[in-house]
């Protein structure tokens, strides 16, 4: 399997975490994001939306990090961590439910904050404080739901770690580098869940590549 991207990209990290959880060998083919190589025709032929990551596995080319993790998790369902609860259709549906919650409720809010505090300064612009404030508020409300949920289950989809948890990891890692880490740390169940996610061997292999930091808070 070849993963095209850069280790500092949260979406690429999502795929790398999954590969490590499944003990699957892969080759990371660098794509220079600062030089906009992800907008070149050679990359657009793999992902017409011009975003990393892309995956090549024999004849299959895939983009969208969460479609890639689902593919890897299913192809290698019999080894490594059970990331999808595939043997029980109702448990598998609950994994999908909390994966959708990450995609629709958590990601838009946390990405908007990370974008302003990390990406925008890299482009030489100033963060928009109003966007940060609005999305911190949205994120807080989402994390209130998580706090209640994680008071009932150890992980989001139940008692085992699944893709529903994994998909949260890269942007949360970046978020914890900002001055707003209190949103996680002030919620005991969410904090315990996050600390558990950070203790996993796959995380310890991938987090060193998540190198960008906020220049302002």
């Amino acid at each position, binding site marked *: 399997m070849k993963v095209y991207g850069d280790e500092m990209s949260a979406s690429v990290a999502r795929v790398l975490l999954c590969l490590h959880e499944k003990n699957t060998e892969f080759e990371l083919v660098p794509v220079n994001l600062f030089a906009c190589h992800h907008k070149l025709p050679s990359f657009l032929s793999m992902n017409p*939306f011009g975003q990393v990551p892309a995956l090549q596995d024999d004849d299959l080319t895939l983009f969208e990090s969460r*479609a890639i993790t689902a*593919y890897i998790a299913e192809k290698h369902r019999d080894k490594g961590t059970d990331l999808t609860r595939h043997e029980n*259709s109702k448990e598998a549906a609950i994994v999908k*439910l909390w994966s959708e919650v990450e*995609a629709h409720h958590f990601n838009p809010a946390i990405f908007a904050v990370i974008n302003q505090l990390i990406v925008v300064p890299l482009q030489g612009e100033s963060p928009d404080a109003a966007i940060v404030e609005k999305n911190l508020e949205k994120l807080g409300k989402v994390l209130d739901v998580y706090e209640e949920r994680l008071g009932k289950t150890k992980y989001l989809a139940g008692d085992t770690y699944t893709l529903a948890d994994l998909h949260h990891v890269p942007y949360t890692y970046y978020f914890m580098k900002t001055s707003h880490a209190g949103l996680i740390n002030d919620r005991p169940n969410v904090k315990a869940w996050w600390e558990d996610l950070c203790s996993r061997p796959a995380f310890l292999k991938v987090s060193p590549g998540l190198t960008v930091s906020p220049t302002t808070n």
Partner: protein
Amino acid sequence: MVVKLYGQVTAACPQRVLLCFLEKEIEFEIIHIDLDTLEQKKPEHLLRQPFGQVPAIEDGDFKLFESRAIARYYATKYADQGTNLLGKSLEHRAIVDQWADVETHYFNTLAHPIVINLIIKPRLGEKCDVVLVEELKVKLGVVLDIYNNRLSSNRFLAGEEFTMADLTHMPAMGYLMSITDINQMVKARGSFNRWWEEISDRPSWKKLMVLAGH
């Protein structure tokens, strides 16, 4: 016992689930949650859906929310009945997932605020963010060009068969096509327009439109 769908039949996310039920020939019961009176924010519904949105389902003891997760569960549970929505091989399923995720991350992120500003806000007597809508339309044009290119060499988004990847776009497309400017943007893109005309001709869409009072 039939599955209960809590939602409003005119709302996009419940429609996603209803389309799945119709394609899979699954019997269902709609329990109306009135969005105009904010019933979805009341304590009784928050127990079903903690974000205060529709839809949610109850199927005996089994409860679920998030329309795309619900649709996927039923498409899997009834894999051998009705339309195959998920793809036939591991690789085909991955391509279906890919284009379904494109709907979440590229299409819905633009379609949703456009529909909110141009259709929902006027209904509620609220002011539309005109500047935002113009920016969103430009971005939507770029995204529709990518879809148009994909559909110029593929009958449907994931290949030669109708799948969840196409279905998941339909409720928002129904709303967008009622907006003149967007309707013209769609018609200006030959392959994309061909795809919309074909999928909106499906019996499931027509039955949904009847249910929704059109």
